[in-house]
């Protein structure tokens, strides 16, 4: 087993154990495991499951040849007012050896909660964006990206 795979297991197991689901996750069938894995990761990080929302627009290419520099466009739609704005948006790549990508901290002075950047992906996966709104809600979206090379290698 390569180092990257060992590191992946340690990272995920730490989160799964924290969520108390390691035993259940280990026994689950392969397809269901991917969903449970994402659920465990999110509840482990945020204490609850964010709600999928059309307001979180995570635009990424469905297929991309280089895992080293995959374009990512993120917009949280809706007005940015002092009362309600996207205060922090977390981007996660659960199938990377290290799943954290970035956290974007917006303020009303941005005018728009919108950013474009480029990320590394190790293998095909759902990239996840979780928006913490200043007035409370946790919203999320995911984008499937089929990368054709390992950008973490």
């Amino acid at each position: 087993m390569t180092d990257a795979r060992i590191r992946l297991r340690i990272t995920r197991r730490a989160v799964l154990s924290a969520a108390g689901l390691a035993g259940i996750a280990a026994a689950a069938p392969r397809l269901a495991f991917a969903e449970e894995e994402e659920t465990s990761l999110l509840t482990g990080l945020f204490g609850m499951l964010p709600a999928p929302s059309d307001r979180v627009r995570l635009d990424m290419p469905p297929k991309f040849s280089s895992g080293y520099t995959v374009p990512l466009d993120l917009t949280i739609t809706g007005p940015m007012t002092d009362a309600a704005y996207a205060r922090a948006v977390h981007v996660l790549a659960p199938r990377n050896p290290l799943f954290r990508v970035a956290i974007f901290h917006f303020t009303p002075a941005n005018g728009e909660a919108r950013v474009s950047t480029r990320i590394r992906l190790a293998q095909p996966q759902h990239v996840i964006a979780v928006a913490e709104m200043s007035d409370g809600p946790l919203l999320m979206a995911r984008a499937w990206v089929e990368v054709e090379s390992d950008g973490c290698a």
Partner: protein
Amino acid sequence: MPEPRVISPKTAAKGEIFQIRSLITHQMETGLRRDEAGAVIPRKIINEFVCRYNGETVFRVELHEAMAANPYLEFYVRADESGTLEFTWAEDGGAVFSTSRDLTDT
């Protein structure tokens, strides 16, 4: 030597939301690679980017290992007043790189 590059307009109408494009040349060593001898190459990345507008933080990013090399960030700022936009990048180990651009409200 990491080199910051920023494209930002010199003028903007008051209240206009304008685009800023920023990049810093940087390997963004993830800590996952090994050298020819088999030793792990330690992590060394830009871990934070901050944009301040007349001293106030308007946009901040925590960067982790899954950000690509030569981190590129394109974002937006509302032109409230004339002044200076300052951009800083913090590297693992404490080095800070920065540049600034003036903005005139029209």
